[in-house]
Protein backbone atom coordinates (compact mmCIF):
# COMPACT_ATOMS: atom_id res chain seq x y z
CA UNK A 1 0.00 0.00 0.00
CA UNK A 2 1.28 3.39 -0.95
CA UNK A 3 -0.54 6.56 0.06
CA UNK A 4 0.58 9.84 -1.48
CA UNK A 5 0.15 13.09 0.43
CA UNK A 6 0.29 16.10 -1.87
CA UNK A 7 2.35 19.00 -0.56
CA UNK A 8 1.44 22.47 -1.79
CA UNK A 9 3.69 25.30 -0.68
CA UNK A 10 1.04 26.47 1.78
CA UNK A 11 -0.09 23.03 2.99
CA UNK A 12 0.16 22.88 6.74
CA UNK A 13 -1.56 19.62 7.62
CA UNK A 14 0.68 17.55 5.36
CA UNK A 15 3.00 16.51 8.17
CA UNK A 16 0.08 15.77 10.52
CA UNK A 17 -1.55 13.59 7.88
CA UNK A 18 1.71 11.82 7.16
CA UNK A 19 2.23 11.25 10.86
CA UNK A 20 -1.25 9.77 11.26
CA UNK A 21 -0.90 7.53 8.22
CA UNK A 22 2.61 6.30 8.89
CA UNK A 23 3.59 6.68 12.54
CA UNK A 24 0.25 6.07 14.17
CA UNK A 25 -1.40 3.63 11.79
CA UNK A 26 1.72 2.07 10.31
CA UNK A 27 0.75 2.40 6.64
CA UNK A 28 3.19 3.45 3.99
CA UNK A 29 2.92 7.11 3.07
CA UNK A 30 4.92 9.43 0.88
CA UNK A 31 4.91 13.12 0.14
CA UNK A 32 4.07 14.23 -3.40
CA UNK A 33 5.32 17.71 -4.36
CA UNK A 34 2.65 19.84 -6.06
CA UNK A 35 4.70 20.08 -9.21
CA UNK A 36 4.45 16.33 -9.75
CA UNK A 37 2.73 15.56 -13.05
CA UNK A 38 1.91 11.92 -12.47
CA UNK A 39 0.30 10.11 -9.59
CA UNK A 40 0.80 6.67 -11.05
CA UNK A 41 1.61 3.90 -8.64
CA UNK A 42 -0.18 5.42 -5.69
CA UNK A 43 -3.01 3.42 -4.09
CA UNK A 44 -4.58 6.60 -2.82
CA UNK A 45 -3.89 10.31 -2.86
CA UNK A 46 -4.63 12.64 0.03
CA UNK A 47 -4.95 16.40 -0.42
CA UNK A 48 -4.20 17.67 3.08
CA UNK A 49 -5.42 20.79 4.85
CA UNK A 50 -3.78 24.17 4.75
CA UNK A 51 -3.68 27.21 2.54
CA UNK A 52 -2.31 25.65 -0.65
CA UNK A 53 -1.20 28.86 -2.37
CA UNK A 54 -2.24 31.34 0.26
CA UNK A 55 -5.92 30.95 -0.64
CA UNK A 56 -6.25 34.64 -1.39
CA UNK A 57 -8.88 34.07 -4.08
CA UNK A 58 -11.33 31.39 -3.02
CA UNK A 59 -9.95 28.60 -0.85
CA UNK A 60 -8.48 25.95 -3.10
CA UNK A 61 -8.95 27.96 -6.30
CA UNK A 62 -5.32 28.60 -7.10
CA UNK A 63 -4.39 25.02 -6.21
CA UNK A 64 -6.37 23.83 -9.21
CA UNK A 65 -3.68 25.33 -11.44
CA UNK A 66 -1.00 23.00 -10.06
CA UNK A 67 0.29 19.98 -12.00
CA UNK A 68 -0.57 17.57 -9.19
CA UNK A 69 -4.22 18.64 -9.09
CA UNK A 70 -4.43 18.50 -12.87
CA UNK A 71 -3.11 14.96 -12.65
CA UNK A 72 -5.99 13.99 -10.38
CA UNK A 73 -8.57 13.63 -13.14
CA UNK A 74 -6.68 10.98 -15.13
CA UNK A 75 -5.68 9.36 -11.87
CA UNK A 76 -9.31 9.02 -10.80
CA UNK A 77 -10.39 7.86 -14.23
CA UNK A 78 -7.78 5.14 -13.93
CA UNK A 79 -9.33 3.91 -10.69
CA UNK A 80 -7.40 5.98 -8.16
CA UNK A 81 -8.78 6.94 -4.76
CA UNK A 82 -8.65 10.54 -3.56
CA UNK A 83 -9.31 11.97 -0.12
CA UNK A 84 -9.49 15.75 0.24
CA UNK A 85 -9.35 17.08 3.80
CA UNK A 86 -10.45 20.66 4.49
CA UNK A 87 -8.41 22.67 1.98
CA UNK A 88 -8.16 19.45 0.02
CA UNK A 89 -11.97 19.28 -0.09
CA UNK A 90 -12.14 22.91 -1.20
CA UNK A 91 -9.63 22.13 -3.93
CA UNK A 92 -11.63 19.12 -5.15
CA UNK A 93 -14.71 21.36 -5.44
CA UNK A 94 -12.81 24.06 -7.29
CA UNK A 95 -11.32 21.44 -9.59
CA UNK A 96 -14.77 20.12 -10.39
CA UNK A 97 -13.98 16.65 -9.05
CA UNK A 98 -16.81 17.00 -6.57
CA UNK A 99 -20.03 18.98 -6.89
CA UNK A 100 -20.80 22.15 -4.96
CA UNK A 101 -18.94 25.20 -3.73
CA UNK A 102 -17.63 26.63 -0.48
CA UNK A 103 -18.48 29.95 1.09
CA UNK A 104 -17.13 31.60 4.23
CA UNK A 105 -18.62 30.26 7.47
CA UNK A 106 -21.86 31.98 8.37
CA UNK A 107 -20.18 33.29 11.52
CA UNK A 108 -17.66 35.07 9.31
CA UNK A 109 -14.96 33.61 11.53
CA UNK A 110 -12.45 30.79 11.52
CA UNK A 111 -13.69 27.88 13.64
CA UNK A 112 -11.46 25.35 15.32
CA UNK A 113 -13.39 22.93 17.50
CA UNK A 114 -14.58 19.37 17.78
CA UNK A 115 -17.75 18.49 15.91
CA UNK A 116 -19.73 15.31 15.53
CA UNK A 117 -20.30 13.67 12.17
CA UNK A 118 -23.01 11.25 11.21
CA UNK A 119 -21.95 8.64 8.71
CA UNK A 120 -24.46 8.69 5.87
CA UNK A 121 -22.79 6.21 3.59
CA UNK A 122 -20.54 3.33 4.53
CA UNK A 123 -19.82 1.75 1.15
CA UNK A 124 -17.03 4.09 0.11
CA UNK A 125 -13.33 3.27 0.33
CA UNK A 126 -13.04 5.77 3.18
CA UNK A 127 -16.00 4.63 5.25
CA UNK A 128 -16.13 0.89 4.66
CA UNK A 129 -15.14 0.25 8.27
CA UNK A 130 -18.08 2.28 9.53
CA UNK A 131 -21.79 1.67 9.68
CA UNK A 132 -24.41 4.13 8.45
CA UNK A 133 -25.41 6.26 11.43
CA UNK A 134 -22.06 5.90 13.20
CA UNK A 135 -21.15 9.16 14.94
CA UNK A 136 -17.54 10.32 14.79
CA UNK A 137 -15.99 13.06 16.93
CA UNK A 138 -13.44 14.93 14.82
CA UNK A 139 -12.25 18.56 14.85
CA UNK A 140 -12.82 21.19 12.20
CA UNK A 141 -10.47 24.12 11.53
CA UNK A 142 -11.58 26.36 8.70
CA UNK A 143 -12.90 29.77 7.71
CA UNK A 144 -14.59 28.68 4.49
CA UNK A 145 -16.56 25.55 5.12
CA UNK A 146 -20.11 26.51 4.28
CA UNK A 147 -20.95 23.94 1.65
CA UNK A 148 -23.43 25.03 -0.98
CA UNK A 149 -24.80 23.22 -3.97
CA UNK A 150 -26.64 24.87 -6.79
CA UNK A 151 -30.32 23.86 -6.95
CA UNK A 152 -29.98 22.13 -10.30
CA UNK A 153 -27.35 19.76 -8.94
CA UNK A 154 -29.22 18.74 -5.81
CA UNK A 155 -31.21 15.84 -7.28
CA UNK A 156 -28.08 14.19 -8.61
CA UNK A 157 -26.34 14.59 -5.26
CA UNK A 158 -29.20 12.73 -3.60
CA UNK A 159 -29.61 10.15 -6.33
CA UNK A 160 -25.96 9.22 -6.25
CA UNK A 161 -25.95 9.20 -2.44
CA UNK A 162 -23.01 11.53 -2.48
CA UNK A 163 -23.40 12.97 1.01
CA UNK A 164 -21.11 10.87 3.18
CA UNK A 165 -21.01 12.91 6.40
CA UNK A 166 -23.34 15.38 8.07
CA UNK A 167 -22.70 17.55 11.12
CA UNK A 168 -24.74 16.23 14.01
CA UNK A 169 -25.06 16.19 17.79
CA UNK A 170 -23.20 13.71 19.98
CA UNK A 171 -26.24 11.47 19.59
CA UNK A 172 -26.46 11.76 15.85
CA UNK A 173 -29.23 14.35 15.55
CA UNK A 174 -28.83 16.76 12.66
CA UNK A 175 -30.00 20.18 13.90
CA UNK A 176 -29.15 23.76 12.94
CA UNK A 177 -27.64 24.32 16.38
CA UNK A 178 -24.80 21.89 15.72
CA UNK A 179 -24.07 23.05 12.20
CA UNK A 180 -20.75 24.87 12.69
CA UNK A 181 -20.59 26.81 9.43
CA UNK A 182 -24.05 27.01 7.88
CA UNK A 183 -23.49 24.25 5.34
CA UNK A 184 -26.49 23.35 3.28
CA UNK A 185 -28.23 20.32 4.71
CA UNK A 186 -25.44 20.15 7.35
CA UNK A 187 -23.20 18.57 4.76
CA UNK A 188 -19.68 17.92 6.04
CA UNK A 189 -18.40 15.45 3.48
CA UNK A 190 -19.25 14.64 -0.12
CA UNK A 191 -18.08 11.84 -2.41
CA UNK A 192 -18.11 11.20 -6.12
CA UNK A 193 -20.95 8.85 -7.16
CA UNK A 194 -18.67 5.82 -7.01
CA UNK A 195 -17.21 6.91 -3.68
CA UNK A 196 -13.67 6.92 -5.04
CA UNK A 197 -13.25 10.63 -4.34
CA UNK A 198 -14.18 11.95 -0.90
CA UNK A 199 -13.90 15.46 0.41
CA UNK A 200 -14.62 16.43 4.00
CA UNK A 201 -14.07 19.56 6.08
CA UNK A 202 -13.19 17.91 9.42
CA UNK A 203 -9.64 16.72 10.02
CA UNK A 204 -9.44 12.95 10.65
CA UNK A 205 -5.66 13.21 11.07
CA UNK A 206 -6.26 15.28 14.19
CA UNK A 207 -8.29 12.47 15.72
CA UNK A 208 -5.99 9.55 15.10
CA UNK A 209 -4.09 9.40 18.36
CA UNK A 210 -5.53 8.76 21.82
CA UNK A 211 -3.31 11.38 23.46
CA UNK A 212 -4.39 14.17 21.13
CA UNK A 213 -7.94 14.27 19.85
CA UNK A 214 -9.05 10.67 20.21
CA UNK A 215 -9.15 8.00 17.52
CA UNK A 216 -12.39 8.47 15.62
CA UNK A 217 -10.57 9.97 12.64
CA UNK A 218 -8.32 6.94 12.39
CA UNK A 219 -11.38 4.93 11.36
CA UNK A 220 -11.41 6.77 8.05
CA UNK A 221 -7.76 5.95 7.36
CA UNK A 222 -8.17 2.35 8.47
CA UNK A 223 -11.20 1.99 6.21
CA UNK A 224 -9.05 3.14 3.34
CA UNK A 225 -6.31 0.69 4.24
CA UNK A 226 -8.81 -2.16 4.52
CA UNK A 227 -10.29 -1.27 1.15
CA UNK A 228 -6.90 -1.19 -0.54
CA UNK A 229 -5.51 -4.34 1.05
CA UNK A 230 -8.62 -6.35 0.29
CA UNK A 231 -8.50 -5.17 -3.30
CA UNK A 232 -12.05 -3.84 -3.45
CA UNK A 233 -13.10 -1.66 -6.33
CA UNK A 234 -15.55 1.21 -6.04
CA UNK A 235 -18.85 0.31 -7.67
CA UNK A 236 -21.31 2.68 -9.31
CA UNK A 237 -24.61 2.67 -7.54
CA UNK A 238 -27.76 2.57 -9.64
CA UNK A 239 -28.65 6.10 -10.51
CA UNK A 240 -32.03 7.72 -10.76
CA UNK A 241 -32.02 11.37 -11.64
CA UNK A 242 -35.37 13.08 -11.50
Amino acid at each position, binding site marked *: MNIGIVVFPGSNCDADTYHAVRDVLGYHGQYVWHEERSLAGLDAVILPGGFSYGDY*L*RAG*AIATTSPAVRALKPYVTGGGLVLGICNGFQTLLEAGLLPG*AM*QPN*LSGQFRCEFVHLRTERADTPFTCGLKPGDVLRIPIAHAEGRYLIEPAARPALAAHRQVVFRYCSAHGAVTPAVNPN*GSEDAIAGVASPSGAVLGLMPHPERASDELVGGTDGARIFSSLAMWITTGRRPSMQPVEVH
Partner: protein
Amino acid sequence: MGGGVRTVRVIVTLKPGVLDAPGQAIQKGLAALGHAGVRQVRAGRYFEIELDGTDGLDDRVRDMCEGFLANTLIEQYRYDIV
Protein backbone atom coordinates in the same frame (compact mmCIF):
# COMPACT_ATOMS: atom_id res chain seq x y z
CA MET B 1 -1.85 40.83 -32.14
CA GLY B 2 -2.78 44.34 -31.10
CA GLY B 3 -0.27 46.08 -28.87
CA GLY B 4 -0.77 48.37 -25.90
CA VAL B 5 -1.82 47.74 -22.32
CA ARG B 6 -5.44 47.72 -21.22
CA THR B 7 -6.92 47.76 -17.78
CA VAL B 8 -9.84 45.49 -17.05
CA ARG B 9 -12.02 45.93 -14.01
CA VAL B 10 -13.86 42.86 -12.83
CA ILE B 11 -16.54 42.70 -10.17
CA VAL B 12 -17.60 39.33 -8.78
CA THR B 13 -20.71 39.03 -6.62
CA LEU B 14 -22.84 36.18 -5.37
CA LYS B 15 -25.70 35.15 -7.57
CA PRO B 16 -29.09 36.39 -6.42
CA GLY B 17 -30.57 33.81 -4.11
CA VAL B 18 -27.28 32.82 -2.52
CA LEU B 19 -27.23 34.09 1.06
CA ASP B 20 -24.70 36.90 1.27
CA ALA B 21 -23.54 36.53 4.87
CA PRO B 22 -20.64 39.00 4.60
CA GLY B 23 -22.99 41.60 3.11
CA GLN B 24 -25.43 41.12 5.97
CA ALA B 25 -22.68 41.42 8.53
CA ILE B 26 -21.56 44.71 6.98
CA GLN B 27 -25.11 45.98 6.99
CA LYS B 28 -25.34 45.21 10.70
CA GLY B 29 -21.99 46.85 11.33
CA LEU B 30 -23.10 50.03 9.58
CA ALA B 31 -26.33 50.08 11.55
CA ALA B 32 -24.43 49.60 14.82
CA LEU B 33 -22.32 52.63 13.94
CA GLY B 34 -25.48 54.66 13.58
CA HIS B 35 -25.88 54.73 9.81
CA ALA B 36 -29.62 54.83 9.34
CA GLY B 37 -31.48 53.72 6.24
CA VAL B 38 -29.06 51.08 4.99
CA ARG B 39 -31.53 48.79 3.28
CA GLN B 40 -29.19 46.19 1.96
CA VAL B 41 -25.50 45.55 1.40
CA ARG B 42 -24.08 43.13 -1.10
CA ALA B 43 -20.42 42.28 -0.80
CA GLY B 44 -18.18 41.21 -3.61
CA ARG B 45 -14.66 41.08 -4.90
CA TYR B 46 -12.96 43.48 -7.26
CA PHE B 47 -10.00 42.88 -9.58
CA GLU B 48 -8.08 45.36 -11.66
CA ILE B 49 -6.09 43.56 -14.29
CA GLU B 50 -3.49 45.08 -16.57
CA LEU B 51 -3.31 43.13 -19.80
CA ASP B 52 -0.88 43.24 -22.67
CA GLY B 53 -2.41 43.26 -26.12
CA THR B 54 -5.87 44.25 -27.19
CA ASP B 55 -6.92 41.39 -29.47
CA GLY B 56 -9.77 39.15 -28.38
CA LEU B 57 -9.86 40.94 -25.08
CA ASP B 58 -13.43 40.01 -24.28
CA ASP B 59 -12.79 36.34 -24.78
CA ARG B 60 -9.65 36.45 -22.68
CA VAL B 61 -11.36 38.23 -19.83
CA ARG B 62 -14.40 35.94 -19.93
CA ASP B 63 -12.06 32.99 -19.81
CA MET B 64 -10.30 34.35 -16.77
CA CYS B 65 -13.56 35.00 -15.03
CA GLU B 66 -15.31 31.73 -15.81
CA GLY B 67 -12.34 29.53 -15.19
CA PHE B 68 -10.82 31.29 -12.25
CA LEU B 69 -11.88 34.65 -10.87
CA ALA B 70 -15.47 33.63 -10.28
CA ASN B 71 -16.97 30.34 -9.22
CA THR B 72 -19.89 30.41 -11.60
CA LEU B 73 -21.81 27.82 -9.63
CA ILE B 74 -22.67 30.51 -7.11
CA GLU B 75 -21.08 33.72 -8.36
CA GLN B 76 -21.67 36.11 -11.23
CA TYR B 77 -19.26 38.58 -12.72
CA ARG B 78 -19.19 41.69 -14.83
CA TYR B 79 -16.32 43.67 -16.22
CA ASP B 80 -15.44 46.74 -18.15
CA ILE B 81 -12.37 47.50 -20.16
CA VAL B 82 -10.88 50.92 -19.59
